[in-house]
């Protein structure tokens, strides 16, 4: 067979494989949007669940997920960005730095259910926070930490060294240079990493299974020591544990979770694109 023909067939095959990869993604999102859209109404988003969750809305799950994500952000953003500043600006190339780096890579690979076990062992039982928003948020933030650290470190490193040198030559201290020059320049990259980390936390189920999630709790949480429902766990519960669940509510819940997570994803992408175009270096 002619070599050019082989090449053309080969390229067509590669394109076909790319389609095999992409089509299921479109199908998953398409099916959930089409079947879930019917369930979405003002009531579905703002009412308590009724009749063993088979009717009413999913408000406590939505609020729970927002609260947990917020709690995760409070802990994970300062710690993650601080860790990244340390790694990119202060740490010299010692065995300790290498150990920190290796630790972060490994933290990123630890299965989410193992974070759940850790959260149960440390926060729920050892520190006696009980199954609570506090324990769940802390567990999620530790899971999110490596994502934020790696992304923020990469963003900080991308800022050219000259920026730091110039700042120092004008008599600025190291911290002034970081605070006024490097951090603002790295901000879009950091924000993107933060959003990607938080959206992962918002969608995770395994770490909250034993640390905070409530099966059915038609109230809004009052304090950090309350349990709460959460969207991912709610979707798991209604699609596997509750017989006779109307399909519409399942798809509706999946759609709300998907929209929440993918909109954060979209914002991250837009921020990254916007600042990349505007950047002067």
């Amino acid at each position: 067979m002619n070599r050019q023909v082989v090449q053309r067939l080969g390229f067509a095959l590669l394109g076909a494989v790319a389609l095999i990869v992409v089509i299921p993604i479109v199908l998953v999102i398409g099916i959930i949007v089409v079947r879930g859209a019917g369930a979405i109404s003002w009531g579905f988003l703002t009412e308590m669940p009724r009749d063993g969750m088979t009717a009413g809305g999913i408000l406590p799950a939505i609020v729970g997920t927002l609260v947990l994500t917020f709690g995760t952000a409070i802990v994970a953003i300062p710690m993650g960005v601080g860790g990244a500043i340390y790694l990119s600006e202060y740490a010299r190339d010692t065995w300790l730095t290498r150990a920190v780096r290796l630790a972060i890579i490994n933290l990123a690979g630890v299965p989410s259910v193992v974070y759940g076990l850790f959260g149960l062992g440390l926060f729920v039982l050892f520190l006696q926070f009980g199954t609570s928003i506090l324990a769940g948020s802390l567990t999620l933030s530790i899971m999110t930490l490596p994502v934020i650290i790696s992304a923020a470190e990469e963003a900080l490193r991308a800022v050219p060294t000259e920026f730091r040198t110039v700042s120092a030559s004008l008599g600025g201290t190291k911290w002034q240079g970081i605070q006024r020059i490097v951090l603002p320049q790295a901000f879009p990259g950091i924000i993107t990493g933060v959003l990607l980390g938080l959206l992962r936390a918002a969608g995770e189920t395994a770490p909250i299974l034993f640390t905070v999630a409530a099966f059915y709790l038609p109230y809004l949480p009052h304090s950090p020591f309350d349990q709460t429902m959460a969207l991912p766990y709610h979707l798991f519960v209604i699609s596997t544990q509750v017989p006779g669940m109307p399909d519409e509510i399942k798809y509706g819940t999946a759609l709300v979770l998907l929209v929440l997570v993918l909109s954060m994803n979209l914002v991250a992408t837009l921020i990254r694109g916007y600042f990349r175009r505007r950047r002067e270096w």
Partner: protein
Amino acid sequence: MIEALIRVIGVSSIGLVLLIFAFLLREGVPAFLTTPLRGLFGTRWYPTFGFFGTLPLILGSILVTLTAVAIALPLGVATAVFVREVAPNWAREVLKPMIEVLAGIPSVVLGFFGITILAPLVREGLGTPTGLTAFTGSLLLAYMALPTMISVAEDALDAVPRSYRDAGLAMGATQWQTIWRVVVPAARSGIVTAVMLGIGRAIGETMAVMMVTGNAARMPITLNSLFMPVRTMTATIAAEMGEVAHGSAHYHVLFAVGILLFVFTFLINLAAASTIFQKRRRGGLR
């Protein structure tokens, strides 16, 4: 002041890894003391009757993970080659964001899709009594591992110098021949890294797997095991930890399973990281 604080935060990340391991050990080690090793690695997992054999769970995880990576590897490498070497710009602009979206879909949503749409398809397509099989889980896991594998493989292809491609083409090879005989072989260490990270991703995945694999703790040693229900380590922890009494033998054994998972993903990541470091040190490829 702030600088000292930042330093503390940086070093505390190692502290966290140690802390995680310490707490897994604290809760998991009693399992090794109370249950004899032979029982712990036995072939029967019936916690209510005191049989804590984790072998079916370990083999279940391995079966599902390896099948997933076997499905994802050709798809991932072909897609990475397509995106990097072949695709016109517009196709790249469509493909890359789609794959990022896939990476963002929560695993419970994919599990929900698996249980409502994919499992019935598998049942009818393969004629199995139930659609909740190891194979269904592997399919989902393959797609969940794809974004990581594609992006790592892409980076590996990207790192192959232009001169390699030019040399191939100058020898009279077609672009297709150059890709498969020069570029992909030159990127093979990166592709190995992609496979390892894919394995790490797949073996630790919990919700989607728990929802679609049927969760029967049987030894997957017969040929048709792939098309029967299976139970993984992660699914066992997730399904049972909520119901055990804290401090019971069952509780400690579940933590012991967590230790196994932690150690396994730790080793995989260490291996993957060391290939990345090696590449950096040599300042080039291979």
